[in-house]
């Protein structure tokens, strides 16, 4: 760290004490190297569908370049209500139960800030998306990590939650299909979790950003289970299924009181999500099946390929059922995941992300994103085979 210690002391203690994301450090190293094949990219390699991009240009031409309602365009909220009903099985009022946000990232932050009073506990499962713990801390909550395990397919069980839950626990955060493990929860799995949330009177925040990307199993949303809509904030966005990461567009659906509370923060801190992004999202929702179907087919083929390649090399990996990540174990090489990733990067020029970036229990694993071309995946697997043969 450079800079003066006196300035550092002025920084809010919570912010000061949270380390930078491990992903960020890793990126800094990778970005100094040339010709690296990256399995480290957590976003689709597909282009944003052309009709969506073309409609963005049209939106600019027409002058959709001003503030929108704090909630977002009503036309978009109406389209989302239909989409969520059809694909996730919950009914919302577009007037006051849907909020358009700057990505799921913002929605997650809003939900936590709207719910937490300092000291409230939040249950969440690790390995998980890099932002969860930090976002809870920024909202002055107390993070309670529950460890999911490879032998369980990285699924969450009621027993795991019971072991950690206390009377101060207010919120349960879920993310399935999961980043970084690719884990998916079946309906029966979720019914147990839902029953637990009802009994303990928890609010559930469910991040279903990979909801469309499942391969052998259909996705079930916890919000569709009995008694869950009234205690759930459903988060989703356009980043993954439509390959629209740079648009920064997400949304939250929930009971009016909760959405109103989130809207207040959004109103004063963000005002609204980008107007042209919202226009593009309206276009994206016009033909989701064709856009997403082909990407899902291609991800499935890559998932099959990468899992087969790991098996042939004797690398243990649970079969990911969703998202676009495989999370193989590298424990048998007897070195920390970070060292494995570093050596693989330097010796073979392939980037994978050490599992520890997603929580301490990610030790012994690396995340391999298959959101990259078949050619890259094939070459990366050739190099991985060569690399581990020498270890």
């Amino acid at each position, binding site marked *: 760290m450079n800079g003066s210690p006196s300035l550092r002391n002025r920084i809010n203690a919570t912010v000061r004490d949270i380390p930078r994301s491990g992903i960020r450090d890793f990126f800094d190293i990778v970005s100094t190297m040339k010709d690296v094949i*990256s399995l480290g990219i957590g*976003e689709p390699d597909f282009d944003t569908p052309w009709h969506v991009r073309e409609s963005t240009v049209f939106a600019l031409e027409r002058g959709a370049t001003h503030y929108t309602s704090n909630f977002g365009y009503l036309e978009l909220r109406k389209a989302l209500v239909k989409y969520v009903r059809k694909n996730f099985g919950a009914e919302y009022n577009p007037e006051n139960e849907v909020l358009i946000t700057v990505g799921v990232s913002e929605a997650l932050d809003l939900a936590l800030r709207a719910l937490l009073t300092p000291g409230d506990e939040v249950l969440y499962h690790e390995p998980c998306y890099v932002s969860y713990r930090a976002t809870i801390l920024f909202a002055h909550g107390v993070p309670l990590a529950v460890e999911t395990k490879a032998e369980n397919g990285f699924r969450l069980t009621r027993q795991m939650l019971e072991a950690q839950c206390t009377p101060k626990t207010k919120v349960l955060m879920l993310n399935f299909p999961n980043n970084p493990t690719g884990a998916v929860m079946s309906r029966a799995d979720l019914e147990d979790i839902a029953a637990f949330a009802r009994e303990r009177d928890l609010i559930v925040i469910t991040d279903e950003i990979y909801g469309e990307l499942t391969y052998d199993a259909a996705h079930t949303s916890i919000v569709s289970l009995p008694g869950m809509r009234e205690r759930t904030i459903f988060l989703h966005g356009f980043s993954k299924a439509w390959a629209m990461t740079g648009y920064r567009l997400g949304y939250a659906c929930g009971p009016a009181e909760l959405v109103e509370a989130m809207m207040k923060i959004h109103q004063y801190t963000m005002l609204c999500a980008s107007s042209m992004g919202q226009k593009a999202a309206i276009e994206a929702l016009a033909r989701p099946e064709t856009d997403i179907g082909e990407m899902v*087919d291609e991800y499935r083929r890559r998932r*099959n*390929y990468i899992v087969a390649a790991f098996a042939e090399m004797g690398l243990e990996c649970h079969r990911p059922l969703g998202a676009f990540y495989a999370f193989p174990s590298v424990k048998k090489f007897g070195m920390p995941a970070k060292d494995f990733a570093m050596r693989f990067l330097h010796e073979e020029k392939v980037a994978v992300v050490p599992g520890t970036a997603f929580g301490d229990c990610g030790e012994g694993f690396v995340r391999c994103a298959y959101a990259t071309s078949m050619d890259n995946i094939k070459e990366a697997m050739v190099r991985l085979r060569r690399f581990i043969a020498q270890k």
Partner: protein
Amino acid sequence: MDELLKILQTNALLSREDIARMLDLPAAEVNARIADYEKRGVIRGYQAILNEDQLDLDKVTAVIEVKVTPQREGGFDTIAERVSRFPEVRSAYLMSGAYDLLLFVEGRTLREVAQFVSERLSPLDGVLSTSTHFMLKTYKRFGVLMHQETSDERLTVTP
């Protein structure tokens, strides 16, 4: 369409083993299915997709709309098949609308294509009229853009 055919249609060079991994099938089954498609003539060949504009070839391509009278026996097929047998004709389709056949014809020069039309095509029994359009530049062929740089704008590692 069979996913196996979709894969081959995007990249016929993938090895059978790779295709087997992608489809989660035994390699022997992939081999057998491809052999069957080839035998039945569903797969009629494997070709590279070229950006010919980069090659400075002595070659022109014309798109020719042809009006024909259907034959008493054989309808449009007899005339269409006869036309298709000329090696100059690279593609031929029966169309709905203002004309009947659409041909893609190649020659070394404009003159050569013009000669083909006036000396070979037009005199055929059943050909009523032709309308020839020369192609100037190719933007996209077989679903592949010809002028797109393959650039990946993404950062090398993201959460």
